[in-house]
């Protein structure tokens, strides 16, 4: 009896603390909104201008979601279900944009427009935003649909192919089976595009997220910013309501996505065309942005590049240190939350992390400031703790799902057999569970690291005094500096991100080889 109570306390007390740290700010924001100064109506701020802005933001995000989902689904099928050489190579490179902070691509494409047309605003900034969001987010659709396609048992398709043509089988069998994946990839892209701050901010596009930032940070109209925040939160929640079960399990956030009995189609006709198409895509997604950035940054302006290095170099170590701390904390909490969901049937923290994951970055920023900016919580507000808590809220769900999917793949009997022979729980955890989960924990750590490294939307609102971080520095300098200086700084930031990705890739290769149990 006593054991059960102490076990429940050991679980519930930290769970309540985490809920207080993350949900507290959002609940406090809700209370502020409900008890706002304008008591005539909670929705009094909704005027024609606001509705127009919501409509514009939704329209832009819808276009992005349609284009990115379409591209991602096609690539998902090509790369996960066709058999051809260099498939893995294309897959890794095309997934890279997901790991690189979106603002890097925004600066690169702005440079491209400048290079091509002599003026970065020659192309409509909204079009620029659509291009960048589509190219950055289509890999997410590719990953989601590709994973879903990998999980279809070959027998289902082969049974269909005995009776009907491939095209009919594709429409009648494959597409209905991956419908949840298609829906969720569309919705996720829509929400991420709707709530992203960095790309519209760099292009100077006025969207709902940038408007919240402007109202809060430039006009100090906090009540309006809070009201707008809730409208955005409501929008995101409504969008997710239809498929929240599928997203809550997020099978696509997984280390092992290769199905054991997936049917791979081999073909010869059109193989060259396929390689050409994939190369065009690779060039558009990765090569072109790097070339455009390099051209702008290095075209005879060595002085400018060294100035960029001078400005950015002090921030690199701080950013990496913060990303390391953030990723370590996120991975540890992700492991705990995943264990509670998968093994202790306690999914509430996972649901909470899903909620904070879909809250737009600027909204989370507003909530954090309003909640922690008090003398009693100054030890959080004025230190990196506020950033660490926010990063857990923003990316904890991804880590929890990657590790959770890893736990699902470990048969419960591996732990039970250790229980029967009397291995104590702590030894069981460190000797059996942790080694088997190491690839998942490592993947969660790396993803969290790069996401923390490039986070801008919330960081720019809450970074404590004395902290200098790469994306914030680029954004603030970029507002008043020549484009070439911003490009140079962005190129350095890209190089730093790629350095860490490569470093982790090499570490991961050793780790995965050591811990691959065929």
């Amino acid at each position, binding site marked *: 009896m006593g054991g059960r109570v102490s076990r429940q306390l050991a679980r519930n007390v930290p769970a309540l603390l985490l809920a207080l740290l993350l949900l507290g700010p959002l609940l406090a924001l809700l209370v502020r909104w409900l008890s706002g100064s304008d008591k005539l109506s909670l929705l009094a701020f909704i005027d024609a201008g606001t509705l127009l802005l919501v409509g514009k933001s939704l329209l832009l995000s819808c276009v992005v979601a349609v284009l990115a989902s379409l591209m991602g689904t096609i690539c998902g099928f090509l790369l996960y279900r066709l058999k051809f050489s260099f498939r893995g190579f294309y897959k890794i490179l095309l997934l890279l944009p997901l790991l690189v902070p979106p603002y890097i691509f925004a600066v690169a494409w702005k440079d491209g427009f400048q290079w091509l047309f002599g003026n970065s605003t020659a192309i409509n900034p909204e079009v620029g935003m659509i291009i960048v969001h589509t190219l950055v987010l289509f890999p997410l659709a590719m990953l989601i649909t590709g994973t879903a396609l990998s999980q279809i048992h070959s027998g289902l398709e082969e049974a269909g192919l005995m009776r009907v043509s491939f095209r009919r089988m594709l429409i009648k069998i494959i597409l209905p089976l991956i419908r949840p994946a298609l829906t969720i990839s569309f919705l996720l892209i829509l929400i991420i595009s709707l709530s992203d701050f960095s790309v519209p901010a760099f292009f100077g596009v006025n969207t709902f997220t940038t408007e919240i930032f402007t109202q809060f940070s430039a006009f100090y109209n906090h009540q309006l910013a809070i009201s707008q925040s809730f409208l955005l939160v409501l929008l995101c929640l409504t969008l997710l309501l239809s498929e929240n079960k599928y997203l809550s399990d997020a099978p696509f956030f997984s280390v092992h996505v290769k199905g054991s009995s997936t049917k791979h189609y081999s073909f010869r006709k059109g193989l060259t065309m396929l390689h050409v198409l994939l190369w065009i895509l690779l060039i558009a997604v990765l090569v072109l942005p790097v070339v455009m950035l390099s051209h702008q940054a290095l075209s005879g302006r060595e002085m400018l590049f060294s100035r960029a290095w001078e400005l950015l170099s002090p921030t690199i170590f701080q950013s990496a240190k913060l990303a390391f701390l953030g990723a370590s904390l996120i991975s540890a909490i992700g492991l705990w939350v995943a264990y509670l969901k998968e093994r202790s049937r306690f999914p509430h923290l996972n649901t909470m992390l899903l909620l904070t994951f879909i809250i737009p970055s600027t909204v989370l920023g507003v909530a954090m400031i309003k909640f922690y900016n008090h003398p009693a919580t100054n030890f959080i507000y004025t230190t990196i703790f506020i950033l660490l808590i926010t990063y857990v809220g923003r990316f904890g769900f991804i880590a929890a799902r990657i590790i959770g999917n890893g736990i699902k793949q470990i*048969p419960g*009997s*591996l732990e*039970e*057999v*250790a*229980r*029967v*022979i*009397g*291995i104590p729980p702590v030894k069981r955890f460190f*000797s*059996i569970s942790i*080694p*088997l989960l190491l690839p998942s924990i490592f993947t969660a750590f790396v993803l969290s690291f790069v996401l923390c490294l490039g986070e801008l939307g919330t960081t720019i609102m809450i970074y404590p005094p004395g902290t200098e971080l790469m994306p914030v520095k680029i954004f603030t300098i970029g507002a008043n500096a020549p484009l070439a200086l911003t490009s140079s700084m962005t190129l350095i930031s890209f190089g730093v991100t790629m350095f860490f990705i490569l470093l982790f890739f090499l570490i991961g290769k050793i780790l995965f080889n050591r*811990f691959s*149990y*065929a």
Partner: protein
Amino acid sequence: MHKISLEHITHRYGDNKVLEDFSFSFEEAKTTCLIGPSGCGKTTILRLISGLEAPLEGIIKINETVATENERIFIPPHKRKIGFVFQDLALWPHFTVFRNIAFGLKDRKAEKVSHQVTQILDLFGIADKANKYPHQLSGGQKQMVAIARSLVHQPEIFLMDEPLANIDVKVKENILTHIKLLQQQFRFTMLYVTHDHQEAMQTGDKILVMNEGVIEAAGTKKEIENSSNHFVRSFMKL
């Protein structure tokens, strides 16, 4: 030697009732085969006896001591002196064969642990596989490792959940011979779950035929052969 009795056990998973007022006593130092169609509650009985789960209602006694009663576990799994071979064998993929067997042996002297492990590996004729990982073994070798891992702790109750499915007859006979020899030596009580009627008839001192959470027939091979129960005759192909 351990006698196990289950008294009025009722258990369900969600809305699905798997055992309904189930009572039975398993004889000590004997092998009882549990046979029945999928989902009839065979594995659940092993899990309840091992203490990995507690029944909603009913009492489980081990050697006349109440081990579990109405959702409350009084004796935890590791204090029941049980060896459990799971259907999926549950070999730890990141441990070698040697470590799989040695893990959990409480004797602190490495030499003694090593001796115990080598002895059991020799007995099963797989001493040369000590440094291999599970994925480097054949199906039959994996099964032997799983059984050796459970027996090295010298259990008094040995639970086997269809561990010999999908291997060829010769290997199966070889493993069963080893187990029988060990049972004669250590006199443990064995519960053997299978869905193969021939295997049940060959292996069990007693056979328990189950269907939908209740006992259809129980007895020796001869008693089962003479059963007039329609389900038993049909399922056992008599």
